[in-house]
């Protein structure tokens, strides 16, 4: 009964947030160059990107169109690998001058002591580092035999600073699903405070590698692992907000599923496109900073993100959970958009039947 009331009120809250459409979180795809060649990369990044890095002044000009800076507004530098840019610190300081916070998603390969200090000096406030297994499985997925050691060094540095709010993300796959407990112990030993677990969706390079995708049974194994971890306070473990997980909703995250892409989350992509999360199909772009006023696009467009009724097609059309799920994470709509790419809840329900 209480759970139903909570869910009902949450849906009202979600509707209100959608109507409000406040920009709280902005990704900047500042480069598509990358120093790794990960097997699961959803963006098909490479060492020699087709796109040049976006000049900092172009990004800042777009940012300067934002009126009435919302509370907790954060710019997240993403890529490719953002640390390949030499001017991240300059960009960070410019953002701080404007009253914005900023953070970085990094593969950790270039995150050494000197860079850690220069990022702190420039006012970094948060960081996400990828660790995809114990040494062998991590280096396999990251396609680099040195990356694990560098990531561990990056985690130690980030842990040493109380200033940075940081977490570790892990893409769970066939190779690391049975190492999760050991990874957890490793992270606790490195004084990490937060760990987010993802699955890999079959896009980019991952679409062609079945080793990367979990079976339904393994997905439920992952859910149960997270539920168990969350009973302890040693490290904050959670499932990412990638999708709706039915009966596990209140057990694997701090809040119910709410895909805020295009509702509170925007992005400026490498070619100037204005969209939501960078892993969303690029045909959903709403404008371009080189031809449009960024903030006007944010305020006046994004209807396809704010009204998700169009996702009630394919297997979602008759789904009993649609009102809570609303077509799953937006990044699950690709290509012809006639059906959701991944239904997390379906995996759980199929497993329960078997």
């Amino acid at each position, binding site marked *: 009964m209480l759970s139903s009331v909570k869910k009902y009120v949450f849906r009202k809250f979600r509707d209100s947030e959608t109507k409000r459409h406040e920009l*709280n979180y902005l990704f900047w795809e500042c480069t598509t160059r990358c120093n790794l060649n990960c097997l699961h990369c959803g963006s098909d990044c490479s060492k020699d990107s087709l796109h040049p890095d976006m000049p900092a002044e172009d990004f800042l000009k777009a940012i300067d169109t934002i009126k009435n800076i919302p509370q*907790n507004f*954060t710019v997240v530098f993403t890529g490719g690998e953002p640390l390949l840019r030499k001017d991240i610190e300059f960009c960070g300081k410019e953002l701080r001058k404007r009253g914005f916070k900023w*953070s970085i998603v990094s593969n950790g390969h270039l995150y050494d002591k000197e860079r*850690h200090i220069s990022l702190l000096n420039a006012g970094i406030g948060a960081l996400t580092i990828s660790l995809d297994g114990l040494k062998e499985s991590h280096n396999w997925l990251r396609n680099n035999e040195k990356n694990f050691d560098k990531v561990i060094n990056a985690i130690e540095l980030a842990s040493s600073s109380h*200033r940075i709010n940081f977490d570790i993300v892990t893409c769970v796959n066939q190779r690391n699903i049975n190492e999760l407990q050991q990874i957890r112990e490793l992270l606790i030993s490195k004084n990490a405070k937060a760990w987010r677990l993802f699955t890999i969706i079959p896009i980019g390079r991952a679409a062609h590698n079945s080793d990367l995708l979990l079976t339904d049974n393994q997905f439920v194994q992952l859910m149960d692992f997270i539920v168990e971890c969350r009973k302890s306070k040693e490290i904050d473990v959670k499932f990412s907000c990638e999708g709706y997980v039915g009966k596990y909703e209140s057990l694997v995250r*701090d809040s119910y599923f709410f895909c805020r892409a295009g509702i509170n989350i925007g992005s400026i992509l490498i070619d100037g496109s204005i969209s939501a999360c960078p892993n969303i199909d690029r045909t959903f772009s709403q404008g371009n900073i080189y031809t449009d006023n960024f903030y006007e696009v944010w305020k006046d467009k994004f209807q396809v993100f704010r009204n998700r009724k169009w996702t009630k097609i394919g297997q979602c059309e008759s789904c009993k959970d649609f009102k809570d799920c609303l077509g799953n994470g937006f990044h699950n709509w690709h290509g012809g958009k006639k059906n959701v790419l991944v239904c997390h809840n379906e995996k759980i329900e199929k497993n329960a039947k078997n």
Partner: protein
Amino acid sequence: MKRNILRKIIGGISLTSVMFVFQACYGTPQDFGFDLLVQGQVKSKTSGLPIKGIKVSVVNNMQYEMTDEEGRFSFYTERFGSLKLRFQDIDSTENGLYINKDTILTDLDRNVYLAIDLEEK
């Protein structure tokens, strides 16, 4: 204002305050902003001229920055009750020889600007 309060009440009933401190799937956690900007200029006490190449470091912390051509420095650092900064001449005679100096800052509710004079050796 009224709408904001209502928003918080509804968010609170439906779950918790984390509703307002969310994190994108492939993004970072939120920055809670516990830092301050420390900036200033280092000059020679004798000549009044700016000194380049002075290491400005936070004691008991790995952060530091070097002064530029105009003796200026500027960096963000974690906000504590007090902050001890050390000014060190580490480049031997290259930009003159100066005696190191420590400064303790208290009352760190806002950003600080420091004018530092170093004595010549």
